[in-house]
């Protein structure tokens, strides 16, 4: 392969990438920026919130509990050397609210719900169900993509809050119940150091941003799937890989803006 060919193929893949971004943008535009249909849209949305959100609760809650406990245990062994084990509460709570809550929830969500969304939409496409909606004069973006997108965006911040709450409870279990930190000081220092705007609102902003990115990638990968078994397996893998990387990169960016 000559140099010119290599440059050409580089250019081609760049064009493909930009075209893909454009298509993904158009899909989101077509799904989201429409006048909502309250009567017909609500049941679809509720069903998807159940599938995407409620069914992800178990993995999110269990992970939150363990991560909170591990965080507290690790934190305690470090803090106790300096005699500052009373600060375990804020350490656990702030780590969870600012970083681990939104990020780990988003990663779990990508693996649990994102891949399922991609596979579902991909199979709907390869069994011509999306085409069939089109031919019935029903916009699949509206009927299929929009409810799933909004379900993801609504569910993920709530899941992140649950993750954080359970994580703090896990920290309490290890710190107070096991290691014997004073119950009152654990909670009062925690309460004094968590700020509404700085910590909780930022947690929700981060989590919403991750929700948009993960759900968008999952839906787009499904929507653009090559309709065969290999295509679907590739698409689900791409969903998990790309949304995980996107979440981590976006997290750095948001952290730099919020706390930098």
């Amino acid at each position: 392969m000559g140099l010119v060919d290599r440059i050409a193929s580089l250019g081609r893949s760049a064009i493909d990438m930009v075209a893909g971004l454009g298509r993904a943008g158009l899909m989101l535009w077509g799904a989201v920026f429409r006048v909502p249909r309250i009567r017909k849209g609500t049941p679809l949305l509720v069903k998807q919130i159940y599938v995407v959100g409620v069914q992800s609760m178990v993995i999110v809650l269990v992970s939150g509990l363990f991560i909170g406990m591990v965080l507290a245990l690790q934190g305690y062994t470090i803090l106790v050397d300096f005699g500052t084990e009373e600060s375990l509460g804020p350490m656990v709570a702030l780590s969870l609210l600012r970083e681990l809550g939104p990020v780990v929830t988003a990663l779990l969500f990508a693996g649990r719900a994102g891949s399922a969304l991609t596979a579902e939409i991909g199979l709907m496409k390869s069994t011509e169900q999306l085409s069939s909606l089109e031919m019935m004069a029903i916009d699949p973006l509206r009927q299929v993509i929009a409810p799933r997108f909004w379900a993801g965006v609504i569910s993920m911040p709530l899941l992140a809050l649950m993750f954080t709450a359970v994580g703090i409870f896990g920290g309490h279990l290890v710190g107070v119940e096991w290691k014997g930190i004073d119950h009152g000081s654990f909670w009062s220092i925690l309460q004094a150091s968590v700020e509404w705007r700085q910590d909780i609102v930022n947690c929700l902003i981060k989590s919403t941003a991750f929700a948009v990115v993960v759900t968008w990638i999952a839906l787009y990968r499904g929507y653009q799937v090559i309709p065969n078994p290999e295509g679907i397996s590739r698409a689900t893998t791409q969903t998990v890989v790309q949304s995980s990387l996107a979440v981590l990169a976006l997290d750095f960016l948001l952290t730099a803006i919020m706390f930098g």
Partner: protein
Amino acid sequence: MTQHSTPLVEVRNLGFRRGSRVIYDDISLTIPRGKVTAIMGPSGIGKTTLLKLIGGQLVPDSGEVLFDGQNVHSASRSQLFEMRKRMSMLFQSGALFTDMNVFDNVAFALREHTQLSEEIIRTLVLMKLEAVGLRGAADLVPNELSGGMQRRAALARAIALEPEMVMYDEPFAGQDPISMGVLVKLIRELSHALNLTSVVVSHDVAEVMSIADYVYVIAEKQVIARGTPDELRGATDNAQLMQFLQGEPDGPVPFHFPAKDFSEELANGAG
């Protein structure tokens, strides 16, 4: 001029390519109202593509498709959706919604596009299911149906909104003789009873010739023959058509995929 003398669908000088592969090169055909028009041709020449072009799901590179005098591809999205309410398509796979039972599948378009009460919808759905013989299967989900039954359920869904035109994509492919017979009977009877315009895309010669009023045979990006089934059977001078109708393995359409000379390739095998 009465409305009924103009064709429902007119395809004019249509050109379409996928990547660098030309699927259609300047193809024209008309689909008259209230008749069964068949489009036949070997597998893989894009007959389904033609239906998707007529339905406005794909956009041609050149030429135009008129549905009742209206250009399908220059219409706005809402105009296109209005046209699609008047046409419907039976997909090869049936394409039933797998998360709903048969009843809800058939009721789907009625619930989306009409303001009818649930009671009237129930009556309409049961009528459609009765017509295809699946009233007893209303509560089953698509996975519980056989392939032939899925296609019949999809047919009930396709006629739910009482469209003017139904496009059948390979309705007979992969069916056993009994369900094939059932589908032939259904297509013929529904077309007459509902005064439907039917477009049947297929390569099952015998079944198509038995129900079609008019047949187009497509091969090599072109219409190679057109006429009533009797006219086609009589066109013995058209070698390409005869090969297709009689199913001969070799002829104008070669048995071999284009390749290098066989003895040359064997001789050069080592190098």
